């Protein structure tokens, strides 16, 4: 106990007084407490000097903001006026800064909005055009008029398979709306009240059926609307759908809700009524606003067929019109070159044509020209005025009609001169010389080259002719054939010579046989010889004014018969002129 080191110091202090001990203690205190003393001095100085240094605040300000944090609305309330004033001031002084800052955000948003608006407008226009002329389209137009809605909207609604009209993101516990999007044109009631009621309905149903919290109302239907609800741990998604949605849409809602829970986990967990953080979900929710419409009832194939048919009809109509025009042009060209026809006007009318002009009565009938040109005469009305045309062909035709020349006479027109050649009876020649100048267009008639034929001479030529046959034969000898040909010409001249006077030629061809052989055979042989000659002459119709008979003759007289041959094997001719009115009394040549 005596080893206490302080005992000597106490003793020294008692001898030197209190001062030395105090100094020791002071020294010891200084050694031990110097750092703390310095700090205490600084603290005292701070307490004495209450003014706050900006440097000190700058150290703690970010931390202070973080501590007050998102849950404290007072901070926002205090700062809001200053932020607003600062923002307003910046906008006024340096708007370009704000423009540069928001341009990257606003540009795409504006472009997207314009694109959507244009797509919507185009879609509505397409639907309107598709249905504008159909019966169903008329019914829908009536409905649009009755309901006062735009026609395009009515068309879209009827074509709708399904469309997500609205999507609600709702906080599960509070029933407060976190965000809401709606399709364009959809009438939106108060989304906040709807969110609350949707939540209340779910709670009511769950309680009523004694369901657990994990069991929820996932779907209900009201009229044409179906409400699909996708439940999440913190929030749920409600889609208001018109029509019949596919199952894939529910998967889409589920995916979006999962993504929201992943991206906004903190905001959902700390949600205290401020839905501002969920504004960023706008594109995600808008992605759920899907719509699907029926394809137009007219398929592209039908449209193509319809278009093709219309084109075909147009082509057919054009081709028909072109052909009709071509035919009409050809017809007019034909009329133009047709002698005796002069068209003064040709106009198309409704369903046909109208013609006016001059026509020589002996000119070709315009109807036949029409038929040749392929034009239906019933579609053409024509008004022709008569006139005499002086075309050589018409003068010739008119001369033929008026003068009735025999076939042995040929006419030729040289300017205004009618020239007759060939041969004709004396009577016709005389009559023609009298009538020829009465033919319109003829001022002179010439018949120097026309041979006048006398009927009696012709009769003599005929009656003198005899054709001989070999015994028992009916064959015409080759030498006799030219004679029969010449006889035929004479007979034709004779026929034409008597025609103008109205008389007729009667020709009797008689065959004969010699006495050898049976009589019956000879009679038959005679008849066959007469018919053989007639056949070589050209038949029974030698001319319109000639009547031919064949028969069996009585034998040879001496006319022209050769004594070298048996006189009985012959064919003879007997021509005579008889009046039509007195055919029973044939005149003799």
């Amino acid at each position, binding site marked *: 106990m005596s080893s206490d080191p302080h005992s000597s110091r106490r003793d020294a202090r008692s001898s030197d007084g209190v001062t030395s001990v105090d100094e020791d203690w002071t020294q010891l205190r200084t050694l031990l407490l110097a750092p703390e003393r310095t700090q205490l001095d600084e603290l005292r100085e701070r307490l004495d000097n209450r003014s706050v240094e900006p440097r000190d605040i700058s150290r703690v300000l970010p931390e202070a903001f973080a501590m007050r944090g998102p849950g404290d*609305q*007072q901070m926002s*309330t205090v700062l*809001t006026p200053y932020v607003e004033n600062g923002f307003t001031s910046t906008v006024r002084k340096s708007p370009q800064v704000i423009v540069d800052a928001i341009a990257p955000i606003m540009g795409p948003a504006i472009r997207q909005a314009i694109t959507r608006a244009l797509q919507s407008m185009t879609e509505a226009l397409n639907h309107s055009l598709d249905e504008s002329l159909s019966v169903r389209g008329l019914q829908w137009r009536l409905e649009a008029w009755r309901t006062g809605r735009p026609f395009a909207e009515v068309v879209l609604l009827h074509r709708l398979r399904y469309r997500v009209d609205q999507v609600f993101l709702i*906080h*599960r*516990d*509070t*029933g*407060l*709306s976190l965000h809401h999007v709606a399709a364009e044109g959809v009438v939106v009631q*108060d989304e*906040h*009240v709807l969110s*609350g*009621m949707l939540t*209340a309905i779910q*709670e*009511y149903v*769950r*309680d009523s059926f004694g369901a657990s919290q994990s069991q929820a109302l996932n779907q209900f239907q009201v009229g044409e609307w179906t409400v699909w609800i996708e439940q999440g741990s913190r929030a749920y998604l409600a889609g208001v759908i018109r029509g019949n949605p596919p199952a894939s849409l529910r998967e889409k809602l589920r995916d979006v809700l999962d993504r929201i829970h992943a991206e906004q986990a903190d905001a959902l967990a700390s949600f*205290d*009524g*401020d*839905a501002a953080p969920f504004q960023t979900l706008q594109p995600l929710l808008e992605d759920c606003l899907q719509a699907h419409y029926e394809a137009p009832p007219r398929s592209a194939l039908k449209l193509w067929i319809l278009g093709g048919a219309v084109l075909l009809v147009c082509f057919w109509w054009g081709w028909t019109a072109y052909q009709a025009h071509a035919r009409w042009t050809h017809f007019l060209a034909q009329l133009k070159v047709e002698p005796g026809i002069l068209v003064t006007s040709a106009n198309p009318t409704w369903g046909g044509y109208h013609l006016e002009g001059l026509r020589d009565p002996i000119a070709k009938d315009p109807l036949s020209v029409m038929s040749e040109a392929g034009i239906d005469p019933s579609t053409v009305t024509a008004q022709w005025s008569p006139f005499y045309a002086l075309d050589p062909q018409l003068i010739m035709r008119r001369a033929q009609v008026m003068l009735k020349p025999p076939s042995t006479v040929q006419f030729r027109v040289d300017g205004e001169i009618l020239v007759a050649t060939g041969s004709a009876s004396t009577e016709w020649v005389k009559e023609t010389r009298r009538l020829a100048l009465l033919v319109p267009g003829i001022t002179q008639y010439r018949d120097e080259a026309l041979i006048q034929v006398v009927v009696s001479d012709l009769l003599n030529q005929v009656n003198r002719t005899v054709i001989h046959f070999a015994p028992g034969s009916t064959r015409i000898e080759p030498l006799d054939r030219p004679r029969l040909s010449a006889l035929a010409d004479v007979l034709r001249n004779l026929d034409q010579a008597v025609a103008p006077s109205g008389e007729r030629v009667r020709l009797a061809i008689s065959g004969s046989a010699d006495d050898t052989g049976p009589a019956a055979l000879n009679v038959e042989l005679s008849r066959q010889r007469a018919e053989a000659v007639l056949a070589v002459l050209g038949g029974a119709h030698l001319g319109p004014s000639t009547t031919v008979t064949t028969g069996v003759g009585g034998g040879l007289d001496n006319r022209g018969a050769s004594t070298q041959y048996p006189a009985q094997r012959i064919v003879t001719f007997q021509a005579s002129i008889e009046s039509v009115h007195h055919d029973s009394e044939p005149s003799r040549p």
Partner: protein
Amino acid sequence: MIQKKICMLGGFAVGKTSLVRRFVTNVFSEHYQTTIGVTVEKKTVMVDQQDVMLMLWDLYGEDEFQHIRESYLRGSSGYILVMDGTRKATLDTARLLQQTVVRTVGPIPFVSIINKSDLQSEWEIDQPAIEQLREQGWPVFFGSAKLGQGVEELFGCLATMLLSPASPPRTCL
């Protein structure tokens, strides 16, 4: 904008719907309509220069036949207990409801109102009972949905309490 879910609680026919309707649309109807289940209304009020959207869940009245569905209370930021001054039993109902809320969602802000002050001569709820409520920390208002008295103050006070739960305004106490 801040949104808050508020439940209107009270006995049968104490005037919950009338108070909500007076507050939201400033209309009062003498015709009584029983609330089936719940009706949700909204009203935006301004507190300290800040807009607050009150989502008002007007629940059906509590009585001996039907009790409040606790699921409706979930997520509430506050609630209003409504009593009918002319029926003392509604005060007891309010007490029970307050306990239910505390048990379900915890001690969230609330205010109470004794309705039908236009019939004050017929009141059964006396001053001692009211004082007792206040001693228990109940903010008690007097009002009339019919006359529009005390309605704005009631909702305004609750909105203020919701934004600053730590320091309720003196006017509410």
